[in-house]
């Protein structure tokens, strides 16, 4: 049994120490907004925040989250930057199939939390770990700039 803080709530999960955070969230805590895409930190669909840092939850064992705060897409509506990012995503109409977008939004929110006015090069660096097979990249870029201007 491991005690975790997920989206501001203490929770006890009966999972093995080596279970990746992704599967603890999805299969045990039933928070399915965080997605499985590759299982080896290659696509970013599983991105969540661990104490505010964007991490790939598919390769991070749940034991690494003990005593830390896990934040997922389900809680972005309560995050000031997250709200701006989600609003920009809607305004630009970014999504297509939508499967990667939780991870994209989590990466974008982490970027804008530390970098208030990212350049295109900053966006490339921060977002190149998040694959979108639908190719929403131009709109993601536009939405990040949009959110940055709203937050300024």
């Amino acid at each position, binding site marked *: 049994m491991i005690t975790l803080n997920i989206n501001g709530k203490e929770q006890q999960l009966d999972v093995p120490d080596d279970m990746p955070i992704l599967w603890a969230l999805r299969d045990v805590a039933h928070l399915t907004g965080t*997605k499985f895409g*590759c299982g080896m930190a290659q696509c970013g669909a599983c991105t969540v925040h661990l104490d505010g840092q964007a991490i790939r939850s598919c390769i991070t064992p749940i034991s690494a989250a003990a005593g830390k705060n896990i934040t997922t897409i*389900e809680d972005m509506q309560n995050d000031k930057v997250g709200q701006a990012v989600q609003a920009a995503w809607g305004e630009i109409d970014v*999504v297509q199939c*939508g499967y990667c977008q939780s991870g994209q939004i989590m990466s974008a929110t982490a970027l804008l939390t530390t970098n208030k006015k990212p350049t295109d090069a900053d966006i490339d660096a921060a977002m190149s770990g998040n694959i979108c*097979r639908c*190719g*929403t990249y131009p709109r993601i870029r536009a939405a990040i700039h949009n959110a940055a201007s709203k937050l300024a």
Partner: protein
Amino acid sequence: MNAPLKNTPLNISRRTFIKAGALVVGGLVIAFTIPHAKRFLMPGSVAETAPDAAKLPAPNAFLRIGTDNTITVMLAHSEMGQSIWTTLPMLIAEELDADWSKIKVEHASAAPEYVHTAYGLQITGGSSTTWSEFDRYRQAGALTRALLISAAAEKLGASADSLKTENGYVISGDNKISYGDLAEAAAKLETPKTITLKEPKDWKIIGKATKRLDGPEKINGTAIFGQDIQFDGLMTAMVARSPVIGGTVKTFDATAAKQIKGVRQVVQVSTGVAVIADNYWAAKTGREALKVDWNLGENASLDSKALLAEYKKLAATTGLIAAKAGDNKSAMAKTNQFVEAEYALPYLAHAPMEPLNCSVKIEKDICEIWTGTQMQGTDQLAAAKILGLKPEQVKIHTVFLGGGFGRRANPQADFVSEAVQVAKAAGVPVKTVWSREDDVKGGYYRPMFVHKAKIALDTNGMPSAWEHVAVGQSIMLGTPFEAFQIKDGVDATSVEGTADSPYLKNIPNYQISLHTAKTKIPVLWWRSVGHSHTAFVMESLIDELAHTAKKDPLEYRRALLKDHPRHLAALNLAAEKADWNKPLAKGVFRGIAVHESFGSFVAQIAEVSVNEGEVKVHRMVSAIDCGLAVNPDSLKAQMESSVSFGLGAAMQSEITFKDGMVEQSNFHDYQVMRMGNMPKVEVYIVQSTEKMGGVGEPGLPPVAPAVTNAIFAATGKRIRTLPIGNQLA
């Protein structure tokens, strides 16, 4: 499939079957079917055996109006990113004068009502949803509006002619009644015999950029994909499949797998051995502990390098004739100026972001399936056959598809059949989940192709004879589509874009032939199907001809396509927007390509630089003539998407085989487009009242040749093999 753009009275009793009726909970439902074409009808399909669509039970419908004023649109097609979740409701809402904020959307079940109006089976593919539903969904809206007006006329004691509709209300002078308040009364009325559709000039929704209705739930993480299906008792399964294509299980030892906490069962199915567990992690760990001894079978020595060499040998000989005119031999004897080239394209995986999965719950006389599928009817039949049920006893719940690109429309129903087998063998509800490695290695690829061409140029530098041989596997062979798509041994999808090329129309002598390779690698349509290789070859060859003739590649195309106004319209719009005749920044070069596919005409202009062998695509200018653009913003999104998908594949993607095994496994070695490589994309739409075409795929075929033609302009090196990879290093 000409869309009636004029005011069209429709005689419903002759052309359509309609059923209106009250819902159990009150309200109005409209079921509305147009007899389907038989062209692609699958043997034994539900549609074929359905006694009479008019006598079908009511719950299946295109449209439901609730007494709470909600309007629920049922989709006969699957939402996989292409935005039909919004486009099809736009068609209904237009004719219904609905309140857009009250629209809800659901995927329809697998049922005869939802059979594709042109293909005769329930499918989302061929970039066909919008044009094939343009009439049916507008008619459903118009019919419902007529019923609501009749109900209001009765209630108010007014004549129907004196009433108008607006934003979810029937209006009579200062009185207005909401559709929800009329729904029950409308459900009791007889359906009208004729309806009239709006004139295009009166459209308020069609043709206007409209935000996606599935946007909010995909932004806040609540959208449900197949992976997200969870209910009490649902277990997770992972199947160990043969490392070699076509291999089978000899023996297996599950002792260690069963010792993993959370592993409940290990069962054998036709595709391998399934480990069934409480969750994904336990299933995965269990599968790793499983020992399977495989019969590797006849493909154990399969090697794609050797295969490519074989294809190249074959390409030097004439295949089965797909198209022919004049006399190539004597025409070639008259000139000494030729372009001769050999092109090769690799196997490609679809690799949608959501790995394949399928949840199955089997009870005594019913099986329920939750999955993201592009082909509900085929999946339903396959499941029914495995379980000995009637098709209607299999309920398919379509959920959002985390990408499809063709992979989720499988004539063999591969991932659904396997999941049904697993659930049947396990005796419990099971979600079968593929890992990314399973997806990359698990087959159904865009086939590898080799093209070889010899083209003669006349004294004006124009082509006078065209000899062209293609070699590759057929995606239709062995599928239920074989009878319709393969004629005299030639799979139409292997030669689409070559045999029917507009360039050939002005060339007196040509011959396009095909060798269909007998390789056993499972192949499938991949976004833009045959055009994904033929456009690369044709548009590269045209560029080679233009350069050999020392002519501008745009002007050369204009001359060859002078009788093809829609090609020209796309070409000219792209050239204008890209300032074709103005020089670019130092070191940046342009390439151009134009191609018709799925009824639409797309030109792409790429701006590319090459530095120390590294290719950088800075900007793509895309122009499309697809006829009417129902939702211009989602059209633009699909064009952006096509650039990403096509460019990623052209630059880096490749599936290869060694010792019968796929050499790639995940996104580190099956590289696709990422943010840092994505160019700026500009999309321009030709204002057109021509026949409607698709938008999901047509943007893709000209992407790769536009880029490689720009690389030639930049470096003088002709890229004839994809992916581009490090060929310039």
